[in-house]
């Protein structure tokens, strides 16, 4: 995965590596040049020497500045492009017609994979060039030092990494502490957000003061944790500061003695001290790149897990013969909660299915839309088993409208037309779902949250009706609608769907009373069938399920 990211952006990554290396080289040159200017100009050179060397310094700055600008930009561009490509790949996988990326994954976790993990994996495209360039900077510094003096060079080259290693060691317990601190901080933020989310409830029961006290408690706990962590971090940083100071003192000692015995010049001593300080920079950058790679590896694992998850359903290769008549037949179905269910739905029939068990209702709708295949038995459409058909083709013929279907951001009309339904069809659908009463233009907010629950349900219903599929399966479409409106909707559905197969999975009497036939399922199979009125009259258990 990581290699793919690099090769996918190889030109940008290569450019960024070269430019970043030039930047590091320039940064390394600055202390060296300061030393040279001290030696050649300040310590007894002429004005011309000074001008020449200042010009060289200027050239070094020009190189480091330009290469930094373009190196960083190309690197960041590579990161963004790689993350973008991953996001799209993940989106495609998650929306795959043959099933989502594993049943155990919650939407929130998948979104995290598509945003956070994709970005972290993309970071490889910056971490690699910067890491390589930093190594280059270390080499340049090393060569410069070794050319001045072998012992001084070795001292710096061994001492600096050891210093960073010590930093790493010292940092590990700190990291653990900072994690627990973050947990506490997140908890405080979580409690605050939770209280705000429940603000109406709190105000309704007058629990403002107890709620404030509860938040204060959590906030104080969080404060204790953060202060403890901050103290640890302060001492960690200072210890490093101290160690760096001692390291510089040792370099000064060795360099000073070498200079005093004329083995190196004063300028070289200055350069050596400067380089010892400078080298900590690229070395830390190497460590950073290493850390990013480790994080990216973990993220890449999560992305690969999603992408490589096999689709939940086998593909089907057969086509449906068009036009679809809408004859649906279930034979000997055994699946969750169903034990040998047989059911024949005639083309154009308005059938209602009543089951006291919500999980059975869900199983049924999943079977109709082929988001799952039955363990035994077959679901057929116009005589063809659904399991032999491409799920995408099944859904073009059978639209399953789940009761918790989502609306999407945009206007109400956008949600109903979906860029494909014709104007008069949409109008009829809106009327049938009684959506004409709610504002049609204007944004409905993220997931339609600007609408009330009842309004959302009616818009979703209008969307299904406007799609006008040969077979429409509606699961509890009116649970949040008042009785009078529900009655109108029931009539609307019946009239609009006249002549096209429609299945209502519901326990609502208003809807049941418009169905041609009602099938009452109990203990996994058909217990009774007939009209709503007949069943109410004859079946006490039916009565208790649908009436209240």
């Amino acid at each position, binding site marked *: 995965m990581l290699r793919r990211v690099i090769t996918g952006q190889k030109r940008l990554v290569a450019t960024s590596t070269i430019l970043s290396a030039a930047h590091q080289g320039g940064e390394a040159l600055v202390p060296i040049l*300061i030393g040279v*200017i*001290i030696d050649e100009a300040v*310590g007894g050179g002429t004005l011309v020497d000074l001008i020449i060397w200042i010009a060289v*310094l200027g050239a070094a700055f020009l190189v*480091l*500045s330009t290469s930094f*600008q373009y190196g960083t930009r190309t690197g*960041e*561009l590579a990161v963004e*492009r790689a993350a*973008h490509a991953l996001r*799209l790949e993940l989106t495609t996988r998650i929306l795959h*017609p043959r099933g989502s990326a594993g049943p155990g994954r919650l939407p929130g976790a998948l*979104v995290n994979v598509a945003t956070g993990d994709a970005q972290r994996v993309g970071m490889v495209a910056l971490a690699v060039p910067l890491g390589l360039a930093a190594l280059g900077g270390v080499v340049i510094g090393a060569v410069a030092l070794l050319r001045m003096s072998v012992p001084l060079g070795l001292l710096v080259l061994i001492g600096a990494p050891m210093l960073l290693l010590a930093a790493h060691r010292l940092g590990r317990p700190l990291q653990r502490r900072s994690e627990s601190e973050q947990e506490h901080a997140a908890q405080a*933020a979580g409690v*605050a*957000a939770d209280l705000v*989310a429940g*603000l*109406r409830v*709190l105000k*309704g*029961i007058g*629990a403002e003061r107890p709620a*404030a006290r509860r938040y204060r408690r959590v906030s104080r706990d969080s404060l204790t944790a953060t202060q403890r962590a901050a103290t640890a971090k*302060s001492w960690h*940083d*200072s210890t490093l*500061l*101290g*160690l*760096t*100071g001692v390291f510089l003192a040792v370099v*000064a*000692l060795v360099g*000073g*003695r070498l200079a*005093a015995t004329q083995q190196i010049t*004063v300028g070289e001593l*200055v350069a050596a001290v*400067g380089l010892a300080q400078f080298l900590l920079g690229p070395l830390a950058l190497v460590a950073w790149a290493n850390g990013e790679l480790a994080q990216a590896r973990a993220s890449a694992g999560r992305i690969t897990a999603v992408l490589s998850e096999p689709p939940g359903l086998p593909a089907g290769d057969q086509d449906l013969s068009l036009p679809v008549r809408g004859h649906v037949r279930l034979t000997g179905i055994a699946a969750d909660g169903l034990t040998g269910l047989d059911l024949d739905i005639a083309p154009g029939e308005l059938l209602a299915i009543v089951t006291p068990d919500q999980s059975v209702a869900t199983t049924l709708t999943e079977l109709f839309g082929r*988001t799952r295949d039955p363990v035994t038995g077959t679901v057929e459409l116009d005589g063809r088993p659904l399991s032999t058909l491409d799920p*995408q083709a099944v*859904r073009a013929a059978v*639209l399953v*409208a*789940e009761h918790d*279907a989502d609306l*999407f*951001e945009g206007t109400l009309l956008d949600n109903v037309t979906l860029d494909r339904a014709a104007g008069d069809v949409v109008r009829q659908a809106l009327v049938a779902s009684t959506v004409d009463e709610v504002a049609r233009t204007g944004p409905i907010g*993220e*997931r339609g949250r600007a609408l009330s629950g*009842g309004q959302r349900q009616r818009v979703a219903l209008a969307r299904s009706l406007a799609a006008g599929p040969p077979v429409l399966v509606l699961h509890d479409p009116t649970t*949040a609608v008042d*009785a009078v409106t529900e009655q109108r909707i029931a009539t609307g559905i019946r009239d609009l769907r006249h002549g096209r197969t429609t299945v209502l999975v519901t326990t609502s009497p208003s809807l049941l009373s418009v169905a041609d036939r009602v099938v009452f399922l109990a203990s996994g199979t058909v217990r009774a069938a007939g009209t709503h009125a007949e069943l*109410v009259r004859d079946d006490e258990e039916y009565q208790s*399920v649908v*009436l*209240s």
Partner: protein
Amino acid sequence: MSERTLLPVATAAQTWSAVRALLRPRRGLAVLAIAVLTAGTAIGLVTVRLLGHIVDLVTEGRPADAITAPVVALVLVAIGQAVASGFGLTLVARLGEGMLAELRERFVDRVLALPLDQVEEAGTGDLTSRVTNDVTAIATAVRSALPELARSVLTIALTLVGLVVLDWRFLLAALIAVPIQLHTVRWYSGRALPLYARQRVSVGSMQQQLQETVGGSGTVRALRLQERHHGLVRGRSLDAVDWTMRGVRVLTQFYARLNLAEFVGLAAVLVTGFLLVRDGSATIGTATVAALYFHGLFVPINTALGLVDDAQAAGASLVRLVGVTSMPAPPEQNAQISERATIEVEKVEHAYQPDQPVLRGVSLEVAAGERVALVGASGAGKTTLAGLIAGVRTPDGGTIRLGGTPIDELDVRRTVVILSQEVHVFAGPLADDLRLARPDATDDQLSVALTRVGAADWVAALPDGLGTVVGHGGHRLTVTQAQQLALARLVLIDPPIAVLDEATAEAGSAGARLLEAAVEEALAGRTGIVVAHRLAQAVTADRVVLLDAGRILETGTHAELAARPDGHYAKLWKAWADHRPGC
């Protein structure tokens, strides 16, 4: 859904006075922190002087052993600097974190006291974003930016002092860089801030799109919307990439300009060194020290200037928090009602938008202990009337008296409790949720309340009983269970008047029956207003009040109204009862 009135944002004066108020009790700590950090930085600057001294010793041709003394001093300086900086940073953290904690607590206190109208007008999204994103932005600034900024600024200031001590002309040379830096910062903050704001918006909208697409993947598959959603994600993602890259471009230009300032300043210091050494007013060591001082300024200057946008982001968040904390607190009322919990509503008017009245002159009297059901189509004004009686909203016109006392003189919450349509289970142990209603309740009292609303059995069956963590991130409760909890809270508070707004609307029929029994229990002995969505609740009420378009059209018992030919209620009842012959 017109333009939203967001919550206020503080003015600069309000913000400063809020910061001063937070700082005042911590004055001693602040002074000590600055003193210790200053001392630490000052000690650190001796390092370069000692290095310069070594250079001078070498140029003077002293023996190698002469180096030892300054090196020992270097080690001592390193230790001293480390100790002072560790101590100083600890103090800064204690100061900053303490202030932050107090600020967020004040914020939450204030939010909880806000009138509901105001919260709803602004949308809870705004509040949530302030309490999470803005608090985080300030915390980040306090945790990382503040100590770094403190250290950098001190280093810069003291280095400049150090340059003066060497020779005032070195300072003049170094200051040549300042105009370039100032110009760069102005250039940057003018461009970067709007750009970063735009970038955050585009990244946020990309994440939101992913949330919608991924969260709604079932719907996308059912309706075969894959291409459309892929396109939406791609568009938003490209937009985010585009804005991020613009931000990167400005940031890299910013540092490139600072590079120019570095070069100009360094060259000026070196030239000054050359001239001063030539006319004998400085040694080579001094010139070296000056050059190293200036080279040592690169990092702290970049850090300090780079923190400009962190600081501005924190400032933007701070004004949003202080905006809320400095809102005037609503006056507290202490009056309690007499024994008789009556409700008198007189000519009450209310509108959410000026020309769209929701209630038009509603008058209603409810006797103590009476149960009244409010019915009517959606949009008739039931919920609004319920909210006004419960005091969570203030009417535009007319008066409401509870037990004879005007509602705005009452400590409303001791008198009336409203359970709204919205159910929320507070994250944490279930017992904590219930104790929000009554903090001093014993476990036994909690159990009694749960038993009364029929929730005792399932609560006992939870993994940890009353201690089970529920709500966001915890054990998920069904809608029915959550509503039983809400009723249990009501039982625990035990108010004389209770208002129930469609508390059984979305539970499904089986749950509805269970809840109706729980409602009976919870309302026993109280004056009750029930917004009835399921007409079964109207049947059991003492009186039914039918609202239509903001007016009371009919009032009477269920039997009276249902028998009235052509009555509104009779029609409603017919639609409800037709398919429910058993009822």
